[in-house]
Structures are given as C-alpha cells and as structure tokens.
C-alpha cells in the first residue's frame, strides 16, 4: 500500500468530533455566551425557513432553562410543516445534511453550520442526547426522538423513539442541553431574537428567559414575504469546487448542454464560445471533467460577455415592513422620527444578485452621547459579531454624517447621536468574511449600494431636523404675532394717544407662511377632525389640500371624499383663516393624519408636505430657503465676557 493510501485511510478516520473541536472558532462556539446565541440562532433560522417554505405565518417559542452552573437547555418550538419521521435523524444527526445543497437562492440556511452541529456541541459538552418532537399534518401522531451523533461515522444514532399524541396540528420542537453562559444586553439571545423580530415582521416570537421572564415579539403583519425563487448559478459567480460538484451530478450528457441547462444566462451559442475558449470539446461528458479542465472552463467564463443574472429571485423585506418592524420592536424607546426605509433596486456582484435595504430611527429616548446603534442583517438574519470587519460598518463610516445632523469626528467613523441604523443585505450568496459568517466582506459593489442608501436616509434626517427647527421657530413667531405684537401696538398707541393700528400687514411680513393644523373632537364613536388653514402671507392662495387619515371610515366631510383620503380645494385671502373638517367612524384611537399640498410652493407651507412624487425636487428647495433665513440673522452684539465696568 502506498503512502498516499495510508494517509487517505487516516484521513477518513479523523472523527467529526475532532474536526469540531479543532474548528470551534470557525463554527462560532468559541465562547460560552456565544455558543448559546449560535445554538438558538441555528434552531430559529431553521424554523423560520421551514415556515416560509410552507407558507405559514411563523409562531416560534424559545425558552432557555438553567440546568446547572454552566449547563443550559435550549427549547425551540415552531408551527412549521414538521419533518417526516424518516428524515428527522438526518436533519438533526448528520453534519452538512440539507435539502438545499445546490440551490441558489436567498435563504437563511446558507449561513448556518446546521442544527446538527448544535446537537453535536451539546453531546460533546454535556453528554446528553437531543430531544426532537415533530409532527406533520398528514399523520395522527408525533414522533419523539432522542438522538446523538456517531462521531466516527457522522451518522445519527437514535436512542429512543416514542410515537406520541401532541396537541399541535403540526410543528417541530427541539430540546438540546449545552454548556453555555446566559447574558443579557449586547450580543445576547434576547438581542438576537429582538433583531430577528424586526426583520421578520410576519413572525411572532415568544421568549422565556431562565428567570421566567417572558417577552413576546408580536407579529406586525399577516403578509408572508414572497418565497425567494431558486435560480441557476451564474457562470461569473461559481467556484471551482462547486463547478466540479455540479458537473459530477448533472444528468446531461454533453458539456454544452450542461452549460445551457445548469447555468443561467448561457445560450447554446455562448456555450459553444465558452468551450472554444476553454479548449474543450463541446461533446464531452461533463461528468468526466478534470480539475484542470474545470479551471480552464472557469477562466473561459470570465472571457465571455454574459447578461447579468436575474434579480427577481430576491425577496427584500420592503420599506413599509421594515418601518413596521422597527416601530413594533423599538416603539418603547419612542423615537421621534422613523425615516422612510430605502430598498434599493437589485444589483449584481461577481454574478450574484443582491439587494440592499436600510432604515433609520432617530431621537426620542435614544441616547444622545453614544455611537449610533447598528443593526446588521444578512438574508433576514441578525449579525451580532465582528461589527468592525463588516462592509455595513465601513459604509456607515464612509458617509459624512455631520451634514445630516449627527456628530462624527472628522466626518468619518461611526457617528454619535440618538439614532439606530438598520442595514439588510439580501443575496443568493452573501460574501462573508469567514466561515463563521459573522460579517459581510467589503465588496465594492455592495458597499457603494449601502452608502447610496444611507445618504438618502441622511437627507431625510436632515430634512426632519430642518422642519423641526422651522416648526419651533414658527411656534415662537406665533407667540410673537399673537401676544407680543398686539402688546407693542397697544402700548405704543397708548403712549402716543392714538388708536391701535391694524396689524395684518406686519403679521404677514413676520410670518409669511401658510399654516395648517388640526383639532380633534371626539363624539361617541366618531372622531371629528377640524382642519385650520391660516394664510399669514400677503398673497392670495389657491391650492389643493389632501388629508390622508390612518384609521377608520370617512362618514362626513366638507371636502371631496376619495377612496382613503379627503381633498379640499382651498382658496384663501391674505391674513385670513379657513376651516374644514372630516368625520371618521370606527376609529377608537386617532393616529396622525398626514396632510399634503399641491399647487403651492411647499416652502411657505407649515404643517403639510408636498404631495409625494415630486419629493426630491422640493427637498433641495427647502434647504436653500433655510440657509437664506440664517443669513438675515441680526448681527448680535458680541459681549466680551471680560469687559470694563
């Protein structure tokens, strides 16, 4: 027997356990606290994927029990489709087993090491088997299995199997004991579940901590995300191992048909061209491809022009659902501003489609003197570790946040201020920095997309601050024209012994705005909203006012009732008021109505936004106006602190 053969036999005998022990870091089990988070993450990711695949709204129960000093029991139960009896041992008891081995699509699973690694970790650290209960709809009974992994053969070993009655229609429950440590706060199970809830607003997650404290992250929407579609790999995104694997397993007989059927964007003509450039015979059997030939094929892939891969296979969360998720989970911090999240159009890096989404909340009870909190996600999975190495962090650092109203030393680095930034990258293949899959690599295409998205959030933030300041200035001016000015007029008239002059022209000069506000009256089960428009300008205005109310049915208005908003044609003389109203029914609580205006310069309107659609144009106009206003500020006397007398 040759040396190579002897080594090969040895290689086969290296146990899975040994491999695991040596690669704990890579697998994410390098510390006791992290082991707990990673274990919960594997189980929850599986549950979410399974539910989505079966198009079920996920309802997930997570419990952590403290067994002894360093031993914890993790319980994760879902309402997913369940696993057929035959497959239970494979899913939980065989490393690297999965249903989607070659599937190219956006999934959580691609970033895990698999739940079986958790089973193994538990077995190695506590010596206890995992307990699995699963039931599918079609069967009467559930199966409860106690199982361990045969570390020599990488095979599941079922210790006990009990068919049992379970009060669930379907679902899976796992209980695994592991050596771990429970913490709260940063990089904890709680944080992981909270962030999971933000980006999975269709899921309900219940969490019971070791001390019995129960938190329910409620479902924010009943809409399931569209299931991500599988696509064939794009030649530009393939690696050698994968290519060989695909070639070995293909059912095609010729290299050219292998290329056209197993890859996206490869036509027969292009397949011919690839073979030619790789110096390969198009009629050859793909199963016989040698490593050398595969390498030539890869090179040839890069030499041909190909259409970018289809991008409609991605399933972004969507701007509205991100906002809902943020509101739902962070509502208790009462942020004063939720920016409209940005979902960018899909782009491609190295033949892999990806899409970037970002969100931002600001103000309220968020701490003002700390670096902004960053919530990172890859395919709807929170990334809690390695923040510094992540492309999301780099993109945030590259943006000059000072111009948008956050503090940032030197215009780079993580800004400081009362804000939370959410970044989600969805892709058929997330380029992680390492096998632990904790940070996204600095791919220029991805970074650029994130930066662009962040900048448009930044512009919203600046606009919000500008408006807030403007509003508070206007409140001051209201006081000025309603209280101080009449007093000045009265007193000066008294001193010069003349009648009090009319103040309208002066008021219009000081204010020069059209002011819109509302007063809400409750009448039994109805809500009457009185809308006041005040023209504090010297000009006559004609414009359209829209009231976009959030809840309830419109039963009465003096405006024009449209499907889900009210519309008024406003015709208002200088220094005068107009009053409008609308009445809502079945609205037990009244949210805020958003007002929009059309056919009037939004710069002179306070209390209403320009009708969306021409949003961006107006944005810049408003900023200019504000700068002008700063310019005519009086040059106040500078009083030297240190002066005579």
């Amino acid at each position, binding site marked *: 027997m040759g040396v190579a053969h002897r080594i090969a036999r040895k290689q086969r005998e290296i146990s899975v356990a040994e491999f695991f022990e040596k690669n704990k870091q890579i697998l994410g089990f390098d510390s006791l606290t992290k082991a707990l988070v990673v274990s919960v993450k594997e189980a929850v990711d599986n549950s979410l994927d399974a539910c989505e695949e079966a198009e079920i709204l996920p309802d997930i129960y997570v419990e952590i029990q403290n067994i002894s000093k360093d031993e914890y029991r993790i319980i994760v139960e879902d309402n997913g489709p369940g696993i057929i009896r035959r497959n239970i041992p494979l899913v939980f008891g065989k490393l690297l087993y999965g249903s989607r081995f070659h599937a190219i699509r956006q999934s959580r699973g691609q970033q895990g090491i698999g739940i079986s690694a958790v089973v193994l970790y538990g077995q190695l650290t506590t010596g206890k088997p995992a307990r699995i209960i699963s039931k599918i709809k079609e069967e009467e009974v559930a199966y409860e299995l106690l199982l361990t992994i045969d570390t020599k053969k990488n095979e599941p070993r079922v210790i006990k199997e009990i068919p049992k009655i379970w009060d669930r229609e379907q679902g899976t429950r796992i209980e695994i004991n592991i050596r771990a440590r429970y913490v709260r706060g940063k990089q904890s199970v709680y944080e992981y579940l909270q962030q999971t809830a933000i980006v999975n607003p269709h899921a309900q997650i219940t969490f019971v901590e070791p001390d019995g404290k129960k938190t329910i992250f409620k479902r924010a929407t009943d809409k399931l995300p569209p299931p991500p579609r599988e696509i064939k790999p794009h030649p530009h995104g393939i690696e050698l191992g994968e290519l060989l694997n695909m070639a070995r397993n293909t059912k095609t007989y010729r290299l050219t048909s292998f290329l056209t059927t197993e890859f996206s964007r490869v036509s027969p003509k292009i397949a011919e061209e690839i073979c030619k450039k790789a110096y390969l015979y198009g009629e050859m059997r793909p199963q016989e491809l040698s490593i050398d030939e595969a390498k030539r094929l890869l090179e040839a892939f890069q030499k041909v022009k190909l259409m970018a891969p289809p991008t409609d296979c991605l399933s972004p969360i969507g701007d509205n659902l991100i906002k809902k998720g943020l509101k739902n989970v962070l509502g208790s911090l009462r942020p004063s501003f939720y920016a409209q999240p940005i979902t960018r159009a899909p782009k491609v890096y190295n033949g892999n489609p990806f899409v970037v989404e970002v969100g931002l909340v600001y103000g309220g009870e968020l701490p003002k003197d700390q670096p902004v909190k960053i919530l990172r996600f890859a395919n709807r999975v929170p990334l809690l570790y390695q923040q510094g190495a992540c492309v999301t962090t780099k993109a945030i650092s590259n943006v000059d946040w000072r111009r948008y109203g956050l503090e940032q030393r030197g215009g780079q680095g993580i800004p400081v201020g009362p804000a939370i930034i959410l970044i989600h990258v969805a892709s058929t293949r997330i380029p992680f920095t390492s096998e632990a899959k904790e940070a996204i690599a600095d791919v220029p295409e991805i970074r650029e997309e994130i930066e662009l998205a962040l900048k448009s959030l930044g512009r919203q933030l600046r606009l919000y601050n500008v408006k807030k300041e403007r509003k508070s200035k206007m409140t001051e001016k209201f006081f000025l024209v309603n*209280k101080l000015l009449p007093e000045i007029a009265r007193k000066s008239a008294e001193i010069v012994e003349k009648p009090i002059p009319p103040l309208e022209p*002066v008021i219009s000069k000081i204010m020069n705005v059209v002011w819109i506000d509302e007063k809400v009256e409750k009448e039994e089960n109805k809500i009457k909203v009185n809308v006041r428009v005040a023209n504090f300008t010297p000009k006559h205005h004609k414009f359209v006012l829209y009231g976009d109310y959030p809840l309830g049915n419109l039963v009465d208005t003096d405006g024009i009732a449209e499907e889900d908003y009210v519309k008024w044609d406003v015709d208002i003389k200088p220094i005068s008021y107009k009053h409008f109203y609308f009445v809502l029914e079945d609205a037990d609580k009244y949210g805020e109505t958003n007002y929009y205006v059309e056919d009037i310069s939004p710069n002179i309107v306070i209390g209403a936004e320009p009708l969306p659609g021409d949003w961006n144009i107006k944005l810049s106009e408003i900023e200019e106006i504000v700068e002008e206003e700063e310019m005519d500020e009086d040059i106040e006397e500078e009083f030297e602190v240190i002066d005579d007398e």
Partner: protein
Amino acid sequence: MSSEESLKKLYQIAEDIYEDLVRGEIPKMKLAARNRSNIVFDSRYGVWKYGDSKITRSAKKLDGAYMLLRTLYVMEFIKEMIRDKKSSTLREMYYISEGWGLAKFHTQDESNKLAEDLEVITGYLREDFKLRPEEDGASVIGNITVEEINRKGKPMRINCRDDVGDSGYLIPYNVEKDKLKFVDVDADFVIGIETGGMFDRLVENGFDEKARAILVHIKGQPARSTRRLLKRMNEELGLPVVIFTDGDPWSFRIFASVAYGAIKTAHISEYLTTPTAEFVGITTSDILNYDLPTDKLNDRDIAALQSELKDPRFQTPFWTEEIKLMLKIKKKAEQQSLAKYGLDYVTDTYLPEKLTELGVMS
C-alpha cells in the same frame, strides 16, 4: 439737560414704533453696535467713541420684540417718575418690571442693558431718565473742599481731609455741578488707586499730605460717577490724574476706561474720560525692575492680554510693549507686592520715583 427734553426723545421712540405699525412695517430700533470692533478715536475729545456700525432690534425676532415692548414700558415708567419727581435705582426698576406682564425683565442684566440702549439711542444719560446705579462706595481723601446738595436740598461743605473719617468722602452717584461743586483745593495731583488695601496704606502713611495728592479709591473698574469726578477735577481744577493699579491685564483695562473710554459706555466717553490721565504702574517693567513677587498668568489672563493686543485703544507703543512683555514673562503682580521691601517702600521710594518720572512730582 432737562427731563422734558429727554422725555421727548424717548417719546420719539414710541412714535417711531407706532408709525412703523401704521405703515405696515415691522417695528424696529437702530442703535450703535456696542463691541470692540465698533469703537473709533474721536480726536475732538481725545477719547474712543462708537463708530458707524449699527445693529437693528426688530420685532421680527423674539428678542427684538421683547426689547421693543420693554422699551415702551420703561418709557411709561420714566414718564411717571419725572411727573412725580422721583428716581429709582436700576435694581428697583428690575423689581418694578414684575408687574409688566410680558415685558418683565428676567435678569437685572437685561434691565441694565436696556437702560444703556436708551442712552445710546437718545444721546441722554440714564440719570436724565431718573435711573441711577446703586452707590458703590468709591471715596476721596485729600485737601479738597466740596459743596454737596444734601437730601434736604441744602448745600453742605465738606473738606475731604479734615471733615471725613478714615474711609474718606463717599462719591455720590450724581457728581454733576448742580449736585457737587468744588470750593477750594490745595494739591498737586490726583491719584486713583485700584485696591482698598493700597488706598489704606497710602492714607496711613499720610501720602496725601506728604505728596500734596488727592487720593481716590476707584474700587476696581470705576463706576461712572468716579470717572466723571476724576474728569471734572482734571478739567476744572487743572490737576493731573494718575492711575495706580495691580500689574495684570484687568488693571490695564481699568486704566483704559479712565483714560481712553470704556467699550460699554463709549456713547458718553466725552463725559467720563480723562484723556490726559497717566498710568503709574504696576507695569510689566516694574515687575522686572523692582523684582516683585509674582503670580503665574492663568488661561483667562492670557486670553485677556491677547484680546487687548487687538483692542484699538491699546495700539500705542507703550501698551503693545507692556502687553507683549507680560505675555513673554507670563507673570503678574499685585500693588501690595511692593510690601516685600517694607510698609513705607511704596510711599517713600516707588511712588516718588515713578511720579517724578511722569513729571507729576518733583
């Protein structure tokens, strides 16, 4: 200056505000900017006064609107005082404003500033408006006889050496001729002293008689009445005025406000300033020449010196050199550090030397 005339000027402000409103204009007041960059040398009086740069207090802004409203209330208050032949201290006016509703002052600084604003706008003194500061207790010792009209309206003669105790003759807030007349004087010069300790030392050592001097305790940054009195003694009695202070940046400013004019009161510099006044010391050179005990300059001192280098009033070779030297040695000294050489050293050696140098003593 009659009260009626000053009242007319004030009335004009109310009229302007009213007229603005009638014309549909935002009411406003214009007044000279009161900062270091707006003082210019007036060669007619030899003093520093405000330049042409103006600021506008407009009802467009909250602060401006408050200011206008308060002005109207103050005006009415002054009118009543003139009618009732009363006067009030600035502090009293601050308390009286409690009843003015929106026009109420929130700090006394606000009311003091408004009183100065009215002076700047009308060109009258706050005394004309029956507003006066609290007495600050600056005092005089020396062979000068004055006649002061007392509360009962009767003239009272006081010799500031023989008719007073150790604390001297207290300077009243009004030192104009209708209140205070000079009757007789037998002295060669007037010396203004910054600190109480040094004033007492000179009194105890009999410096007023020995050097034929009138000692004036100016109490730090001198009040208007003290500066006005120095100026009257200088102009009417022909006595040279010298100023004796600590050797630090703040004392340089005391001298500047006596001799050149103060930034806050530059609108009335010609009433208050004694352009011929001379600085005795402590100069930076004195610190070195007399080898005086010193303190280190702190950050505020250094900032003050640097600010003085940019102050137009200090743009003379003497001051530039003194200030730069102090910045270089980074040290300051008190008047009383002269006691290093004994209690009599200041009256027997230091002052005679310095005053002879200035040509005031011979």
